[in-house]
């Protein structure tokens, strides 16, 4: 089976500190409005009892990327390891990929007049390093997995609020937060 790198997001560990976002912005000196990784709060009643949980998302490096199919200039390519790359040199700023991606991943830079997105720190990984967001997470809630081989009883392909995965087959995998126990005094 071909290699397919993806992120494993452990929402049980994530405390919503946004350090992953900042590590990514710092690594690539992104413009203020642009975030390649975003931390989303989950609805508090997603797992029954009220609880604050978070979902940290970057590009899902989909198996069947809608951005790649829509792009008219072949700015998107998929590496052998499954990482979806975006070549800013080819981008003409038509923004169709932004409409095509179900996860709002590609973002438009008003200064460069081009789209940009997470490339899973491909160069860092080629040099044996972890992606900046993975290294920057103080809770060790992020890691890189081979989604083609990954199997973990606690993991899931989706979380409440994550758009339907059928269209593009995203490779991000999640560990769901465990449901808390609400202790009540017996009447």
């Amino acid at each position: 089976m071909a290699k397919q790198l993806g992120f494993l997001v452990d929402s049980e560990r994530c405390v919503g500190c946004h350090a992953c976002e900042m590590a990514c912005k710092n690594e690539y000196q992104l413009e203020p409005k642009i975030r390649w990784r975003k931390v989303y709060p989950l609805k508090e009643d997603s797992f029954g009892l009220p609880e604050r949980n978070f979902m940290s998302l970057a590009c899902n490096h989909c198996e069947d990327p809608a951005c790649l199919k829509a792009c008219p200039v072949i700015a998107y390519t998929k590496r052998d390891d499954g990482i979806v790359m975006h070549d800013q040199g080819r981008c003409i700023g038509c923004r169709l990929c932004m409409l095509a991606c179900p996860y709002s991943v590609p973002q438009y830079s008003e200064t460069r007049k081009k789209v940009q997105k997470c490339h899973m720190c491909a160069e860092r990984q080629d040099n044996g390093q972890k992606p900046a967001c993975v290294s920057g997470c103080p809770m060790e809630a992020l890691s890189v997995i081979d989604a083609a081989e990954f199997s973990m009883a606690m993991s899931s392909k989706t979380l409440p609020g994550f758009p339907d995965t059928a269209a593009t087959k995203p490779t991000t995998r999640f560990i769901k937060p465990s449901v808390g126990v609400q202790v009540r005094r017996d009447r």
Partner: protein
Amino acid sequence: MEEMPLVLFTVLSQMAVGAAVTLALLDAFGGKVEQAAGVFVAQGIAVTAGISLLTSLAHLGHPFEAYRALSHLANSWLSREVALFGLFMALTIVYWRQWQRGDAREKTGLLTAAAGVLAVAASGMVYVLPAQPAWNNISPVLFFSLTAIVLGPLFVAVLLQRKQQVLGKTSFSIVARGLLCGAASFWLYASLLLGQGEAAAVIGGNIVHSGAFWGRLLLGWAAPLGIMAYAASKPEWDIRSKIMPLFVLTIIGELLGRALFYGAAVALTVAGL
């Protein structure tokens, strides 16, 4: 408005395609288009096609690199749209020259019309995207085709009138049917959206609560249909004094409708944010 270049490009290019189809069919099967009038109409179609393509460039971050959009014909509907509209524009120029002098005018006209029809279909397919619930169906292709059907004959009628020729009643009957079909299908489309959950219902709400929708309803559908019904109710059909108001009202309606198409769409969102 960010989408204005796309609103102008799609409406003008579809009008040019509708007009090319109308002129080609009139020339091949209807007869009676004088050469001077035909040259003038074909020139109008080529100029409109050219303006629409130039307008589309304003949407790009890097318009001078637009030629690269032809790179991904195998998968990207946008590449196919660019290629087909480029071909259509080139053919409108050839068609114009054929009206001036040439012995393959009818064939060139039908070829131009065929390229235009494919270009409009490709243009609609660009927006059929799983991430956009309101567009991920046949509606973009249907609405874009209806724009060509209603605006094309009216544009030809305006140009022919400048050369003292009047388009026949059949063409106006096609426009009226196109407007009725547009109104009915849009109503059904908005109702279906409103009846669905989450993003689709939000989009349906955006549409019916928008001033552009009611402006389109009154100016783009009710008023032109009323004018044509009034003309048809007279003992003798005479539309000459009403062609320009009909055209202006219909194009305003189509522009409002297209602004609504782009403005009301809501993409799938992550975590409802």
